[in-house]
C-alpha cells in the first residue's frame, strides 16, 4: 500500500508547481480527514482500527487528485466523510465496498457543490510563483479545462488556448494544463503506473483495456468525421491516465479474474467516451468506473480460473 502512496507523491509535488501550493494543502486536508474518518468509523462500528495499512492515505490522495485545485478547503473534508464512512465502511466495509470510495466522494461533491467542482480550475503557473493563488479570490482567475473547451467550442479552440498543435501533446504530457490536482501530469502518472506494474502490484489488463478502448473509440467517433478523433489527446486529457492506472484497477472494486478485468476495462473505456461525447459532462471516467464497479462481482461469477485438471470421467 505504501508503495502506491510513494507512486502518487511525484504527481503531487509537480502539481504544486503547476497550480500552486494550495494543492498540497488540499491534499493534506484530504489525507488527514480520510485517516481521521477511517479511525473514527472503525471505532464507531466496533471494528479493528486499521489506519496503519495506508489504504485511507491512498483514498485521501486520490480524492484530492480528482478535485479542482481552486476549491474551498471544506470540500475535501466532506469528501473524506463520504468516501470513508459511507463509501467504504457503510457500503460493505474493508474488502467488500462496492464502489471506489474516492470516486464516490467526487461524484457526491460534484452533485452537492456543482459550481465549485466545475469552475475552480486554475490556469497553470509558468514562473514557479507557487504562492500566487493563495488568498486570492479564485473566481477571478478560473479557466476551463481542455475537455470542456473541446466539448463546447471544438478542437480549434483547444489548440488556440492550450498551445500549437505541434507541442500540445508535450504540454499535456508534462501536465501544464488546467485540470484536477493530480490528473494532469501524464508523464509522472505513467511512470508511477509502470513502476507498480514492474513490482507486480498491478497487472496490465485493466490500464491497457481502459486506455485502448478510450483511444480506439475516440478515434472512431470523437472527431468531426468518422475516424477523425484524436486518440492521443483523449488519453492525455481529463483523468484518463490517473483513472486507468490508479482507480479502475483498485483491488477491492475491480474483478479478480483476468478475462473479467479485460471486459471491465473495455466497459470503463467505452462508458468514458460515451459520457465525454454524448453526456452532459466533459469528463466521464469517474462515472464510468462507478458504473462498472457493481458489475465486478457479476463478471467474476461468470469467469472462473481454469482448474488444473478435471476429475477423470467428468464426475465430481
Amino acid at each position: 500500500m505504501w508503495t502506491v502512496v510513494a507512486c502518487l507523491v511525484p504527481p503531487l509535488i509537480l502539481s504544486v508547481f503547476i497550480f500552486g501550493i494550495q494543492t498540497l494543502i488540499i491534499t493534506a486536508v484530504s489525507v488527514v480527514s480520510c485517516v481521521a474518518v477511517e479511525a473514527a468509523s472503525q471505532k464507531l462500528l466496533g471494528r479493528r482500527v486499521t489506519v496503519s495499512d495506508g489504504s485511507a492515505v491512498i483514498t485521501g490522495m486520490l480524492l484530492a487528485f480528482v478535485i479542482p485545485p481552486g476549491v474551498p478547503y471544506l470540500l475535501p473534508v466532506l469528501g473524506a466523510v463520504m468516501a470513508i464512512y459511507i463509501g467504504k465502511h457503510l457500503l460493505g466495509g474493508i474488502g467488500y465496498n462496492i464502489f471506489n470510495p474516492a470516486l464516490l466522494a467526487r461524484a457526491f461533491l460534484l452533485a452537492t457543490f456543482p459550481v465549485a467542482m466545475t469552475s475552480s480550475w486554475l490556469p497553470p503557473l509558468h514562473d514557479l510563483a507557487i504562492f500566487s493563488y493563495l488568498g486570492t479570490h479564485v473566481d477571478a482567475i478560473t479557466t476551463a479545462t481542455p475537455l470542456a473547451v473541446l466539448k463546447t467550442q471544438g478542437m480549434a479552440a483547444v489548440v488556440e488556448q492550450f498551445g500549437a498543435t505541434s507541442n500540445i501533446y508535450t504540454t499535456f504530457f508534462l501536465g501544464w494544463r488546467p485540470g484536477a490536482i493530480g490528473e494532469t501530469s501524464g508523464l509522472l502518472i505513467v511512470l508511477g503506473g509502470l513502476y507498480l506494474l514492474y513490482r507486480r502490484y498491478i497487472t496490465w489488463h485493466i490500464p491497457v483495456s481502459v486506455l485502448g478502448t478510450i483511444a480506439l473509440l475516440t478515434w472512431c467517433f470523437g472527431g468531426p468525421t468518422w475516424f477523425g478523433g484524436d486518440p492521443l489527446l483523449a488519453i492525455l486529457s481529463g483523468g484518463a491516465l490517473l483513472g486507468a492506472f490508479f482507480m479502475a484497477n483498485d483491488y477491492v472494486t475491480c474483478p479478480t479474474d483476468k478475462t473479467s478485468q479485460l471486459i471491465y476495462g473495455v466497459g470503463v473505456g467505452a462508458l468514458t467516451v460515451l459520457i465525454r461525447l454524448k453526456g452532459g459532462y466533459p469528463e466521464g471516467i469517474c462515472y464510468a468506473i462507478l458504473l462498472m464497479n457493481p458489475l465486478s462481482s457479476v463478471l467474476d461469477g461468470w469467469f472462473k480460473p481454469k482448474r488444473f485438471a478435471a476429475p477423470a470421467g467428468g464426475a465430481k
Partner: protein
Amino acid sequence: MCFVFLTQTRELLFDMTSLLTFPKGGVHPPEAKERTASLAIETMPVPDELEVILGQHIGAPCTPTVAAKAEVREGDIIGEVTKGLGVPLHAPVAATVKGVFQSAHPMRVSAPALLLVTNSEIPAVRYSRLDWELCGRDELLKKVHGAGIIGIGGAGFPSHVKLNPPPDNPVDTLILNGAECEPYITADHRQMLEFSQEIVEGARVILKILGIKDCRIGIENNKPDAIAAMTKAAAAASSASAQITVHPLKVKYPQGSEKQLIQSITGRKVPAFALPSAVGVVVHNVSTTKAIHDAIVLGKPLYEKVMTVSGKGISRPANLLVKVGTRVSDIVAYLGGVTPALAKIVMGGPMMGFAISTLDIPVTKTTSSVLFLAEDEIDTRPHSQCIRCGWCVEACPMGLEPKEVAIHVEADRAQDTAQFGVFECFECGCCAYVCPAKRPLVQFMRLAKMKAKR
C-alpha cells in the same frame, strides 16, 4: 521502461527454450538454502533412547511384534501391519525394548510409539552387496515392502503400492523427484551429490520392477552441482534397458509437487483425485529411491533419515543422518543448542510444514527437516480482511479460488465449498504466501475440506 520489457521478454524466451516448468500459478519464496547446501551429510551419534512412532505412514499404524524387555538387533522387525495398507517397522539400533508409550506428534498431537533403549552389548549388523539383478519382479516388490519403504519426501505412501500400478493403467515413465522446492531444505540435494550412483542404481531397480525403460530425473536449476553429478551417474548407468536422463527444472515453488512435476516433465495432466499412473507415470523421490537401493542392493531396511536442520535459531545448521525415532531435543543438544533469536520451530519445510511447540517430538521416516526460525524469517503480522486483489487465485497451481473458500468458511458456510474444488487443494501454501492481507488461507482450506461434502 525498455529495460523492464527486455528482461521480461528474455525471461519468457528463457522459460520456453531451456527449463521445464508448470504453467499455472506458483511462487518464488526466498530459497534460504545457502546455509546448509555445502555441508556434507553428517552422521549423528545414536542417542540413548529412541521413540519409534508406530504409525509412520498413511494407513493403519503398526502393531508391535516385540514385548517389553525384549532385545532387538539393528534392522529387526519390531512392528507389523495386521490389516490394510502398510509396511513393517524396523529397529533403528540394537536396543532393549522398554514398551509402548504416547509420543508427541506434529500433526496428530500424540501417537503411540515404541520406546527403545540403546544396548551396545548386542553385536552390530553389517550389510553387504547382493546380486539383485537375478531377482524377479515379485521378489523385488516383496523386498521393498519388507524393508519398510514409504515415500519419504512426502506424505509417506507405501512405495510397493506405487510400484504395483493397476493393470488397466500401463505405465511408461518413471520420474525421480529431485526438485526439492521447499525453502531451507537441502537433504535431497546432498543425497544427490553424495549418493548419485546409489540413486541411479535404485532407479534401475524400480525400472525393472515396473518393466519399463524411461526414467527422468527432475532437478531444480538452483542445484547445478547436483544436476552435474546426477547426469554423470545417469550416463554411466544407462543402457538399452534403462534410459536414465536428467531434466533441469525452473526454480518455482511447488515444482516438486507430484502433479506439477509430471506436467513440467511430460506435459501430462493428472486428473483430479487420480493417481499419476492414470497418465502412465510413477513418481518417486530421490531419497526414497536411495532407500530402495539400500533395501534391494544391500538388504538394509529403512530406519535412518537424512534431514536438514537449519534457520537462524539453531547454533549449528547441518544436514544430518539420524536414526528414525531420534528426538528433536537430542538433535538440538548435538548441534549446540538454540540461539536467542529463535521464534518458531517448524517440522518440515516453511511452506508445508507444521509448527511444533515441544522438542520431545521424534523424527519419523517422512521428516525431511526441522527449522528453527528467527523473528525475521517468519511473518507475524496479524491477518485482516480480504481486499480481493486476486493474488491467491493467480498463485494457486491447482487453479482454485482460495479467497472464495476463505470467505465461505468465515461466513460459516464451509459445507458449501466443494464447488470450489477444495479437495484438489494439496495445501502447498502458495496462496497464503502471496496474500497481502496475510490471511491464513491454508487453514481455511483445511477447515473447508473437513466440512465440505465430496
